[in-house]
């Protein structure tokens, strides 16, 4: 797989030359290196050092900030630093009268010990006229500002890098080098999946401007989601789209944009690249403390960002990282926003609270009758089912419309069917239901006595329907006929799919469907459609559940590696504490109305068929600080999770899950194998 992406670097004379310089003259080079920079006391070695490497905070080269670029090796990891010189040394040479850049801005640009594992690609620009520069794109999809090599030397830089990290040329652009020094084959393959994405993100100015647009999207409720969530859901795609507009990489670079960039970088790094690295570097959480001290790089930043919309505020938790101890809150500058990477770091804790990570779109009001009508043509076909699914994904459906809309979402009615076709289908299905129902109704008591399997099944169902949602008015009270309907439908289903039969949890899934349909046959057929996807949850071998729990584990590994590390230590990687969530789609975790809202969102399969797994990650991530800090063991964690029931904020969790789903991007495929429920089984695999 990886080979396909690689180009042999030997076709590039520039590169060959640099490589010879690098490896052939390694003896020589080592000496140079030693003379360039002193070996640091704590066992780190400076393997490359280059002076007069500058960034251009504005579009004017005269306003550059010059500094020293270094590659430092510590243990087995390579880090890159770029430290600006003291103010007077080189800033604004020949422009003495110009306003000097404040200290905090210099700090803002400082690059402190970025591990090369955080770097996805490096684009080099070696124009014949003008200065050579490189742009480093992080695995998060974001980039550092261009680093201008005033004395040349990009080639040597790449050559040195090649000696320490896995460097390959992008298939799409000869000037882009992909960086990947992961050791573990799985992680390597994970990151290789990302490679194609690295290419479009080659320009800082563009990524910055697209970030700005992400933020403004968040600020506008009215705005359509079109350009952010279209066909591809990777944020880097939109970066690519914006790229065309901006030619000069230095233009538009403003401190403000950089700040946003740093915030997003912080988030994206945490959720994506972090884990690829950390799970390798650290065997235990305790290791973090030490690492923090080594790499900590507090940077102050006082410039306020854009106003942040209200609904973003409840999102704070998702990025709160127990390992990045934000020591002081409420307005005081946070000195301790230390991380392993320490690139552009936070900042003002108050601001951090507001901006946090909000990539999830603002939620919309539920779809109402008028808007629903616009999705239908005169004959009742849904013209643009994707737009409908998207609309429902972001807002759900008004209760009065559910009876109609759910039939589409569940797949009982086809989107392109007409009113007439649906009416016909309903009649057919009604009599088909009666036929199946009659099969068990016609079993006489005498026959039942010799039909243990039937009797058992019936009594299991009867025991469960009387304990299903009895506090909901629709099902409450003695002799409630709706409880009888639940029983009849479940029993009929157990004949419709005799092999699957009845399993606990099914009554929970049927209950809201009957409540919405208020019709026995329609509820039955909608339930049948739902079970086509969720049936594997109830398989005798429990394979459907195990494969989802495994996928969840992989997703957590990818999206929240510190938590995954912790769960590994605590021997909780079976994720059984999420069993109930997955088995019945969070039915027991939310009040009735919220469950219905969640289900219609899940059933759109808009961003993913496995959105429920991202819900799991979002909830776990939100509580990971507590989980880790309190060192919860399996029992405590299970209890904790069970007790979250009715204490989960649905809308916020949906947005978090959406953000996580987008971040997972193409890595989804590596985490969630095809066929994992509730994906439909592959064609031909159905026993019918």
């Amino acid at each position, binding site marked *: 797989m990886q080979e396909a992406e690689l180009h042999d670097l030997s076709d590039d004379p520039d590169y060959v030359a640099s490589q010879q310089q690098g490896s052939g003259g390694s003896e020589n080079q080592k000496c140079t290196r030693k003379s360039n920079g002193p070996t640091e006391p704590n066992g780190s070695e400076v393997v490359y050092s280059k002076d007069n490497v500058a960034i251009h905070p504005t579009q004017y080269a005269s306003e550059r900030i010059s500094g020293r670029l270094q590659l430092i090796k510590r243990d087995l990891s390579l880090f890159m630093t770029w430290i600006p010189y003291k103010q007077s040394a080189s800033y604004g040479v020949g422009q003495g009268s110009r306003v000097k850049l404040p200290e905090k801005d210099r700090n803002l640009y400082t690059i402190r010990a970025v591990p090369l594992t955080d770097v996805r690609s490096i684009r080099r620009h070696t124009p014949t006229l003008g200065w050579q520069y490189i742009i480093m794109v992080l695995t998060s999809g974001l980039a550092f500002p261009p680093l201008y090599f005033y004395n040349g030397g990009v080639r040597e830089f790449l050559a040195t890098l090649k000696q320490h990290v896995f460097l390959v040329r992008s298939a799409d652009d000869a000037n882009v080098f992909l960086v990947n020094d992961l050791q573990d084959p799985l992680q390597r393959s994970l990151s290789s999946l990302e490679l194609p994405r690295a290419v479009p993100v080659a320009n800082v100015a563009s990524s910055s401007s697209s970030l700005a647009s992400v933020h403004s999207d968040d600020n506008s409720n009215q705005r359509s989601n079109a350009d952010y969530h279209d066909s591809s859901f990777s944020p880097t795609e939109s970066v690519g789209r914006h790229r065309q507009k901006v030619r000069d990489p230095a233009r538009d670079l403003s401190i403000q944009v950089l700040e946003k960039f740093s915030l997003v970088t912080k988030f994206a790094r945490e959720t994506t690249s972090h884990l690829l690295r950390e799970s390798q570097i650290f065997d235990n959480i305790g290791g973090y403390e030490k690492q923090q001290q080594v790499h900590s790089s507090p940077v102050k930043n006082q410039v306020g960002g854009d106003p942040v919309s209200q609904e973003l505020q409840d999102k704070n938790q998702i990025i709160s990282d127990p390992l990045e101890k934000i020591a002081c809150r409420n307005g005081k500058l946070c000195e301790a926003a230390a991380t392993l990477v320490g690139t552009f770091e936070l900042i003002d804790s108050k601001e951090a609270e507001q901006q946090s990570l909000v990539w999830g779109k603002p939620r919309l009001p539920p779809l109402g009758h008028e808007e629903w009508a616009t999705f239908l043509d005169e004959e009742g076909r849904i013209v643009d089912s994707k737009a409908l699914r998207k609309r429902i994904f972001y807002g759900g459906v008004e209760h009065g419309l559910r009876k109609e809309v759910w039939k589409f979402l569940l797949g009982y009615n086809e989107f392109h069917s007409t009113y007439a076709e649906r009416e016909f289908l309903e009649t057919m299905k009604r009599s088909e239901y009666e036929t199946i129902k009659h099969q068990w109704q016609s079993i006489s008591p005498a026959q039942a006595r010799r039909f243990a399997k039937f009797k*058992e099944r019936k*009594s*299991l169902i009867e*025991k*469960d329907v*009387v*304990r*299903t949602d*009895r*506090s909901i008015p629709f099902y409450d009270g003695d002799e409630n006929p709706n409880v009888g309907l639940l029983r009849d439908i479940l029993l009929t289903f157990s004949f419709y799919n005799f092999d699957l039969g009845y*399993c*606990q*949890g099914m*009554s*929970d899934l049927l209950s809201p469907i009957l409540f919405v349909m208020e019709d026995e046959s329609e509820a039955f057929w909608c339930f049948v459609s739902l079970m086509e996807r969720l049936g594997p949850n*109830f*398989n*005798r*071998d*429990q394979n459907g559940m195990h494969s989802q729990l495994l996928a969840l584990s992989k997703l957590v590994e990818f999206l929240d590696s510190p938590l995954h590390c912790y769960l590994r230590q605590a021997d909780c990687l*079976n994720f*059984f504490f999420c*069993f*109930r969530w997955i*088995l*019945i789609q969070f039915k*027991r975790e939310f009040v009735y109305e919220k469950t219905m809202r969640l289900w219609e969102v899940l059933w759109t399969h808009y961003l993913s068929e496995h959105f429920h797994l991202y819900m799991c990650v979002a909830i776990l991530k939100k509580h990971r600080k507590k989980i880790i800090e309190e060192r919860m063991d*399996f*029992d405590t964690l*299970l*209890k904790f999770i*069970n007790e979250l029931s009715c204490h989960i904020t649905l809308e916020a969790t949906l947005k978090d899950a959406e953000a996580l789903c987008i971040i997972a991007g193409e890595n989804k495929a590596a985490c969630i194998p095809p066929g994992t429920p509730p994906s439909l089984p592959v064609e031909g695999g159905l026993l019918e």
Partner: protein
Amino acid sequence: MSARRRMLLKVIILGDSGVGKTSLMNQYVNRKFSNQYKATIGADFLTKEIQFEDRLFTLQIWDTAGQERFQSLGVAFYRGADCCVLVYDVNVMKSFDNLNNWREEFLIQASPSDPENFPFVVLGNKVDVDGGNSRVVSEKKARAWCASKGNIPYFETSAKEGFNVEAAFECIAKNALKNEPDEEIYLPDTIDVAGGRQQRSSGCEC
């Protein structure tokens, strides 16, 4: 480790779906009976502080889904158990017949170090139903089975009416305590166990 293990006694309640496991647990811990309990999905537990003479223990009572299909989850939940409670419904023969399966399944999945002597307690629940008229498993039959499995203590209970629940759980707690390998634990005999002798013969008669 020993400090914590000594304090915590882990009890697993097993039995067919609907025999009243959740109700029994809630009756014991919360002294409540509700018709509105939902069928258990996955697993959950309740804890109760109990005192034997001057020592405090935490009884952690695990309630799991009763359907066989979910038994593969048991591995995660059964480990470290100190006592296993087998529940059947005196009005449902099948639930009694299944006791043996539950017992064996538990021994396989929990794999206790000394399976021969692992403490079980059997509860025949719902004795209140229909004034006992719909009863299909006699006390005699149940006791015979318990005797055959190494004198498993036996109780007849009603989670609904709270009948014999306290006594049953005292016995359960005591057996869990006894299972703790820790020598320091002193077994008080202040608790009256209604269901026969607490001494368990080491030999298995089956």
